[in-house]
């Protein structure tokens, strides 16, 4: 059984990757789940998918429609009916037991898929469970890009694991993770996801048998095979990921530096306002204006504090998540390289044998390898395209959010200062009296 699709796939032979249909695309009529997804293929004005090396993709594969769908889903839920699996993570709660204290999150699932027994599920899961799910997905779908989880380890002294901000940040990341998995055309049908969403008690020892089955075909940690010719598009992917990680790292550093500078600015500002208050105490007529200025500065300080909190909570975690995402993607790319290397090696060996015994036919394991390579490549390509779209959306959202936070900060400050102008201009009645001295 091929590792990449739920149904078996006829071997397409040695075709260049561009001309190969996506495995799922070839099975359009056969696959029953969410037929609506497939129907949207050309009705939506999709733009041509361009591979990194510049050649256009012939087929309008479901991958592009699902990625389009993703865009729709993330932008607005107008086409809600086309989705049939909705998951949400919310309601964090603290659990205290004798051994440990931990947080659980409520996972709510709504679905019309036949794979699920019930249309609705509500379960409680903790981070460990999410981690388990991800590992399972990685192992069972090694040719796909699995979305990342928020950071696992937190230094106990540095971060308060139970603080509201930390829990909320984590919840958002977990929610995003599940949503991405649920929207993935292949991963969302994974049985582990199914149990994660529906089982009352996760039996974490379930996957062992499955694991061993898939293990041999996929575990090429030290394959020992040398890669001859990597297709250009995957090299481009690798390069892009390297450079992108760099840029993300720089942005993370800049954002942190800004937060630090803003905190220092805030500290000085908090000292600045009270001086005006002290001065107001010595003055008679200027008391009102000076106190007005002092209270205005206090308001600006509050606004700045909120800005810093928002940036810490919303901006930095998403950046870091993408860095993790990219790391896992690079690992998958590496796996793909190994699979290809193995195939090439076997092919060479078979060719040598063919020279010796021209009558011998191509051994089946070479064919299997070829299948694997082609499968892997196809999966990766489609996931890549989806990832690119997700990435554009995510960063658009992230940066727009950053701009929004700053705009809000300035608007609050503007309101404060504008409201103080009339206080400053207020002419006291005593002024006219002294003139008639």
């Amino acid at each position, binding site marked *: 059984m091929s590792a990449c699709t739920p149904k078996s796939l006829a071997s397409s032979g040695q075709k260049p990757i561009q001309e190969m249909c996506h495995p799922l695309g070839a099975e359009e009529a056969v696959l029953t789940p969410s037929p609506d997804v497939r129907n949207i293929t050309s009705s939506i004005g999709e733009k041509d998918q361009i591979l990194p090396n510049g050649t256009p993709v012939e087929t309008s594969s479901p991958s592009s429609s699902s990625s389009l769908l993703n865009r729709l889903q993330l932008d607005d839920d107008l086409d809600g009916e086309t989705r049939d699996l909705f998951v949400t993570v919310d309601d964090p709660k603290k659990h205290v037991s004798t051994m440990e204290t931990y947080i659980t999150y409520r996972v709510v699932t709504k679905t019309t898929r036949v794979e699920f027994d019930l249309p609705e599920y509500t379960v409680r899961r903790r981070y460990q469970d999410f981690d388990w799910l991800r590992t399972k997905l990685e192992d069972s779908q090694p040719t796909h890009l699995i979305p990342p989880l928020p950071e696992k380890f937190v230094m106990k002294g540095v971060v308060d694991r139970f603080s509201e901000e930390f829990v909320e940040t984590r919840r958002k990341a977990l929610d995003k993770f599940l949503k991405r998995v649920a929207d993935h055309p292949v991963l969302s049908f994974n049985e582990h996801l199914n149990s994660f969403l529906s089982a009352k008690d996760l039996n974490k020892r379930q996957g062992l048998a499955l694991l061993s089955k898939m293990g041999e075909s996929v575990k090429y940690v030290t394959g020992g095979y040398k890669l001859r010719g990597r297709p250009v598009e995957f090299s481009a992917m690798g390069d892009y990921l390297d450079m992108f990680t760099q840029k993300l790292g720089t942005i993370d550093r*800049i954002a942190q530096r800004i937060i630090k*500078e803003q905190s220092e600015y805030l500290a000085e500002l908090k000292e600045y306002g009270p001086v005006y208050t002290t001065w107001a105490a*010595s003055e008679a007529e200027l008391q009102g204006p000076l106190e007005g200025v002092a209270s205005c500065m206090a308001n600006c300080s509050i606004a700045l504090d909120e800005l810093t909190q928002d940036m810490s909570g919303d901006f930095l975690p998403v950046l870091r998540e993408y860095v993790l995402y990219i790391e896992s993607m690079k690992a998958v790319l590496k796996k793909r390289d190994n699979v290809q290397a193995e195939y090439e090696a076997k092919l060479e060996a078979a060719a040598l044998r063919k020279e010796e015994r021209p009558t011998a036919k191509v051994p089946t394991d070479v064919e299997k390898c070829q299948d694997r390579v082609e499968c892997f490549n196809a999966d990766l390509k489609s996931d890549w395209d989806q990832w690119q779209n997700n990435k554009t959306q995510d*960063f*658009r959202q992230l*940066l727009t959010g950053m*701009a929004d936070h700053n705009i809000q900060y300035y608007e609050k400050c503007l309101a404060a*200062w504008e409201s103080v*102008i009339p206080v400053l201009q207020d002419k006291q009645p005593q002024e006219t009296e002294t003139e008639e001295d």
Partner: protein
Amino acid sequence: MLSVSCLSALLLHTVCCLYIRFIFWLEILFIVAAPFSPSQIPLYTKCITRLKVILIFYILQGRTLILKDLKSHESLYLVCITQLERRMADAGNKESAPIGGDEFTNTELENNKNNTMVEEGSTLLRRMEISVAEAEKRTGKNTVNMQEIFTVYLIETRPIDAITEGHNPAPDSLWRRYSEFEILRNYLLVTYPFIVVPPLPEKRAEFVWHKLSADNMDPDFVERRRVGLENFLLRVASHSVLSNDKILYHFLTEEHRWKEVVHETGFQAKADSRIKALSATFRVKNPDKRFTEMKLYSDELQSLTSQLLRVRARVADRLYGVYKVHGNYGRVFSEWSALEKEMGDGLQSAGHHMDAYAASVDDMLEEEEHYADQLKEYLFYAEALRAVCRKHELTQYELETASSDLISKKQQREELATGMVRTFSFKGMTNKLFGQETPEQREAKLSLLEEQIVQGEETVTEKTVECEEYVKGAWVDMQRFKEQKDRDLREALIGYAVMQISMCKKGIQVWTNAKDCFHKM
């Protein structure tokens, strides 16, 4: 019969005239006594009309009993009218000076009574346009005969009459350096100790935040100093007392002889003793409570403004840091945009906005320096205020010393005269022990004492008058200062708020632009 009716008519006439003159005097008093306020112009216009009518009436009535009075009063009335009209015209004109309006205080009122009305009542600024137009570098030899570079400032003056007559003559001008301004101010400080003398801009740049140069040659510093010097001159020239000083006039008009002239006044010696007196410690028993309060206030003002300036500089520093780091976004967005296909354009433009954001802080903080300068002026003003209060304490102390001296001398005389020893004295003891002095010696002593007492009484009288006059003059000027301070600081705060508002608006603009770029990604 005819004589009775004539007499009664005459009487009636006299009474009428007297009554009219009474009203007349009331009007005059009102105009002269009340401070000029532009809002009262309509009233003044009515007054003037009435006065003119009455004057005509008087002229026509040339043959009345009051003719004699008329001759002396007429000129007075005429002068009043002229002055009033001039004041009203001035109030209508835009002032060339941004600060320093006329304050027609009680001091001026007294001056008005003492001198001719036309000369007083209009400060120098009314008659002359003053500005510090430029700054230039010069080299020269200093006091220890070493080469030095210094900056000179161009003072331009122009009589206002010359302008209003239609043509625009070139202003007279001369160059002065900062040290000459200092000499002028020191002269004013000793000559008018009861006045809160406007301060000069700082000698060296203080309360700097790190990007601002602390170098006296820095062009921004020189420019701000130029503005400060102009401000100083305008404040002095619009002060009702200071503006009439001859030395000030020389400073503005005579480039070369001025230094000799000012030194001939002998102010330097007084300046030195003044500095000693300011820092001396003495115990004054009965100072005017208001002055003690003012002194306390001046101390508070000094410490508060300096604290404010210090913190503000730190805040400016931090703000600069925040803005500049955003410039890094510009760079990384530009690099990133090279990697991307769809997002490239949006990122690139957003990066430019981030660069613009980072660059905008320089101008904003330069503008804020103006606010800092306004605060600094009042920091130094506080010093001047304190000096005025101290001077009062000094004069009061001198009075008290003179009084107690006089009292002890009188006591001594009494003792000598009556032979009764009231207070313990060594002389008394020795007298008792070793016999008294001869009558001749006593007589000599007594006459000496009498002389001293007479002198002492003169001194006490002088000092009392000095003290009273000082208190009067100083109190008036301190009130004027207080009003000016309230006005100026209020305006400074408004200016600061306006600056902050503009900064917020710019911030909103930039981030909105960036947001649009992000949207288009």
